[in-house]
């Protein structure tokens, strides 16, 4: 029997959203031919959490879900002590989700020094510097299951993954969510006119869409192999970014009509110049419903 890659899925300060998202992976059977969880919060596994804590169980990859805090207790021990122990055993650590990577929504919780493993929002934390080289971040609220599983397979095969400055695989995070969005024509000609859930209009201008400033593959690798938030008519909420969650996610923060947050790397003058030009043209086709009848 071939040797499976052994994974410890450790949940800390979390809503378990990434766990649920992982369950939507469409080829779980294949996955379990190649990987096994020594412990997982909701999937049957060989060891209990008590075993994990009391023994040194052989393991290849540590997955951390949820934000990390100095005083967070898990099964009567400090969560950071579990990380400390297993980070010495495994060859790779993967932070699963935005909370484990940047602190996410739980950085607002009452625990002490809440952050991701290496970042508190954009800021690098020093505490786990010695683990930096062996960490890969998969941000997202929740993570895209395909991104997590493909990264695990890349680790299994020993591939040299190119990572961005937040340790996210560029294969999935070098793109913006805008890339592949079916509403790009509406973006180009500055047509919002959107109603939530409808097919027409770009949601960047009024409805809070952060697709052009969010790194992720949501419109390149579709969710459940079917759709994405922006394709379905809901704005991208920037869930893979260190700043997630911002406030007022359904409206675009503007100053005198100019969006406060512009597409990644686009200079304000360039944006305004282009916007001024495209705004001058009214494309009738884009003002109408796609399906009139």
């Amino acid at each position, binding site marked *: 029997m071939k040797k499976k890659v052994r994974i410890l899925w450790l949940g800390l300060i979390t809503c378990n959203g990434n766990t649920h998202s992982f369950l939507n992976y469409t080829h779980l059977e294949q996955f379990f031919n190649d990987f096994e969880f020594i412990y997982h919060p909701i999937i049957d596994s060989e060891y209990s959490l008590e075993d994990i804590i009391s023994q040194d169980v052989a393991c290849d990859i540590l997955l951390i879900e949820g934000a990390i805090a100095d005083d967070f207790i898990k099964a009567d021990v400090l969560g950071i002590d579990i990380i400390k122990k297993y980070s010495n055993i495994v060859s790779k650590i993967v932070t699963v989700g935005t909370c484990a990577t940047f602190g996410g929504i739980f950085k607002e919780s009452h625990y002490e020094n809440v952050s991701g493993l290496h970042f508190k929002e954009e800021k690098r934390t020093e505490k786990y510097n010695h683990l930096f080289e062996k960490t890969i971040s998969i941000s997202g609220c929740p993570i895209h299951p395909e991104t997590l599983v493909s990264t695990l397979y890349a680790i299994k095969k020993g591939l040299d993954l190119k990572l961005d400055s937040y340790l996210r695989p560029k294969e999935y995070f070098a793109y913006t969510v805008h890339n592949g969005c079916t509403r790009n024509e509406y973006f180009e000609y500055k047509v919002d006119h959107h109603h939530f859930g409808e097919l027409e209009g770009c949601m960047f201008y009024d409805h809070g869409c952060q697709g052009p400033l969010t790194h992720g593959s949501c419109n390149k690798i579709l969710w459940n192999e079917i759709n994405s938030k922006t394709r379905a008519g809901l704005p991208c909420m920037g869930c893979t970014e260190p700043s997630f969650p911002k406030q007022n996610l359904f409206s675009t923060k*503007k*100053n*005198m*009509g*100019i969006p*406060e947050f512009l597409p990644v790397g686009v200079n*304000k*003058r360039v944006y*305004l*110049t282009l916007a*001024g*030009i495209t*705004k*001058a*043209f009214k494309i009738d086709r884009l003002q109408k419903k796609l399906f009139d009848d």
Partner: protein
Amino acid sequence: MTDKKQQKKEQIMLASLGLFASKGFYNTTIPDIALSLKMSVGNMYNYFKSKDLLAKEIIKFVSSYFGKKIRAINEENISTKEKTRKIVEIYFQTAIVKPEMLDYFLRIYLSTREVFKDGCEGMICVNDFVTEIMIYFEEGVKCGDLRDQDFFNAFGLFMGYLGGMVFLQGENVLPKKLNEYVDDVSDNIYKALSA
């Protein structure tokens, strides 16, 4: 385009601005412009294929002139109130020193829309200028000096006021010199726009 050709184009645009201001847009012909520069009419067409194209290039030239001046102000590390004053000062100063530029903007570009309807839709030909005004507003709101509101509401208040004053000065009805209004006008604008 070579620097030399660009320089010649600018020379033609400046000469045209002078003639449009003194004789009027429709009363000025391409041969008039060529004559004022001691150029042949044929050579003129090497630079501008028609008077309409020349008219569009001139408005872009005027817009770029103001855009550069306002950009320099936007890039200064000063308060929005000071920026407001400097923009008003630049506008009035131009009306005094280069009256033909604002005359072109106010009397030809704004009122001869049939010439500009193809190729200068919306604000395309005045983009350099409008972009800098947008940045002035946006940064003013961001730092808390200006009130957030519809852009065109604020733009109309600012530019309508300045244009009106320059128009009145052109009609010789202002009791004082235009530059003596800089403080009061910028004060009024800032009060009307401030948070």
